[in-house]
């Protein structure tokens, strides 16, 4: 297990206004690990990601590398090294690819390092380099997801939150994306929490996985174990692997 607890969420409640969506979530992710969050629609996966980046109200604690992120503002959390790629990407449509990427480095100053980071992003996503002057709104879905991830990496995050990166993408594109996420994780030791409906893909790159249902964690374990347990996958995820 991830005893190290780079990210340790304990007794986390979160929601919107009067509506509580998460009920006492506990989980822990080790430094440099990839952790998959699975679960049916409406389970609260997106809400969990938003709680981690300070976009919804939270109660409980979110330990992150020795600090508590609970009840901090989104920009403070971003400055602490958490990058959130939201569901639906959240790219800035009227801005160019380059402007989007530069915005990713917003929390850091210093010109030289930003240029170096741009080059670093292009090695992961060569296609972005050919689209620099294009507005993000004119990219394909896959390219936009790459842009969203590239933008997040521009901040040199210590924790990368990916919310359904495969949403609306062709299987081939999705597989490529996950391959890149794994490469990033290996090369930069970035800790990743990825929410996915496509359990097979997520479990393919993750070490740990948690199944969320109605705002509660109903199953946790190593990715291998959960992948093996076909019955579990079927009943919790609603389709065969």
């Amino acid at each position, binding site marked *: 297990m991830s005893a190290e607890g780079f990210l340790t969420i304990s007794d986390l409640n979160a929601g919107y206004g009067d509506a509580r969506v998460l009920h006492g979530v506990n989980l822990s992710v080790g430094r440099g690990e990839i952790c998959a969050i699975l679960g049916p629609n409406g389970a609260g996966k997106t809400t969990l990601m938003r709680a981690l980046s300070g976009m919804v109200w939270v109660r409980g604690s979110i330990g992150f590398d020795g600090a508590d992120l609970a009840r901090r503002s989104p920009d403070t959390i971003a400055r602490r090294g958490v990058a959130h790629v939201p569901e639906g990407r959240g790219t800035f*449509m009227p801005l160019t690819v380059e402007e989007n990427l530069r915005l990713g480095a917003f929390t850091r100053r210093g010109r030289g390092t930003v240029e170096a980071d741009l080059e670093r992003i292009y090695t992961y996503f060569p296609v972005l380099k050919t689209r620099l002057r294009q507005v993000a709104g004119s990219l394909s879905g896959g390219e936009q997801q790459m842009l969203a991830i590239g933008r997040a990496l521009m901040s040199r995050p210590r924790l990368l939150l990916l919310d359904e990166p495969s949403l609306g993408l062709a299987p081939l594109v999705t597989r490529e994306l996950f391959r890149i996420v794994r490469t990033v994780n290996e090369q930069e030791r970035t800790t990743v929490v990825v929410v996915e409906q496509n359990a097979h893909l997520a479990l393919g790159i993750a070490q740990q996985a948690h199944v969320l249902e109605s705002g509660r964690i109903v199953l946790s374990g190593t990715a291998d174990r959960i992948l093996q347990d076909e019955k579990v996958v079927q009943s919790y995820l609603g389709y065969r692997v």
Partner: protein
Amino acid sequence: MSERTNERGAFANAGSEPPGEDRTREPAKAADTPPRAGTPSRGRVLAPALARVTPGRRGWIAVAALLAVACYLPFQLVPFRVFQFTMVMVYAVALLGLNLLVGHAGQISLGHGAFFAVGAYTTAIMLDRWDLPHLATLPIAAAVAFALGLAFGLPAVRLRGLYLALVTLAIAIFLVPLLKRFESVTGGSMGLTLAKPAPPAWTGLAEDQWLYFLTLAVAVLAFLLAYGLLRSRVGRALHAVRDNEAAAEVMGVRLPFYKTLAFAWSAMFAGAAGCAYTWVIGFVSPDSFVVTLSITMLAGIVIGGLGSFSGPLLGGLFVMFVPSISQDVNDAAPGVIFGLLIIVVMYVAPTGLAGLAGRVTRSTKNILRKE
């Protein structure tokens, strides 16, 4: 707009799923969708105008040509026309500020005229009481307006959409009674009459021409400043706030800080414009800054073209000429003509005149290419 009126945390629609799309899709079925159909509607409409912060080589040539014409104009026109074009530039500077706030930062203000008035009155009082040289009043008027913009921006940035519109409108509404009250300083409803800057003998210019060139210098300075601002890291932050607040925030953009800053800057440009106004008119009174001025300015920048650099210029023409043209067309109800004109322009050119100009150029080019 609706995206922005969401409460914090209502991130679900922020640049994400089109409303109709079913989230329970088969994992294997979905194809690599081209730009999503739902959300970009805003982005799509605004893209041509907003994406261009850098004008490109052709743009710079156009700017140079425009400047050349602007320098030539006052020697060809009668003084009254020169005065009118001077006022166009005054309004353009004010609209540059409003454009920053509305077009680039995605906020709204129905109180821009109030900051314009602050600049005008600051200048007038400085000239009236201390007899300062005209040029010295410009930075002071801009600074005072900037400070007031900060002061009003701080509480205003907590509000969105209609609430923000209402509060900024209130600023414009209480201003005039306030000016009338402090009679000893502001001259009350009588206003203040001031000396206009006199042309130095070596220039050989008439007064109207001198005022024109002074204002032109202010306008050029203001445009350069706005250009630099928008190309900087801060400009990108404003665009991010405009396009998707929630996404901007998770990237580390402190929303209240940048929104307040946008207010302060926009007020600063309005203040500088107000200063030039006092130079040019040589008279200020509460009646010069009624609420409709703020509304006309907002109409001007929306019609001129939000987020583009030609927008404030076209908007300046609009603010200067359309109310008086309306008066000529129908003396009894200029408001009706004015309103109708706004409706017609927005119908023909939903992205404003700047967008229309871009479309016309593009289609002309296409026609020329075909032949």
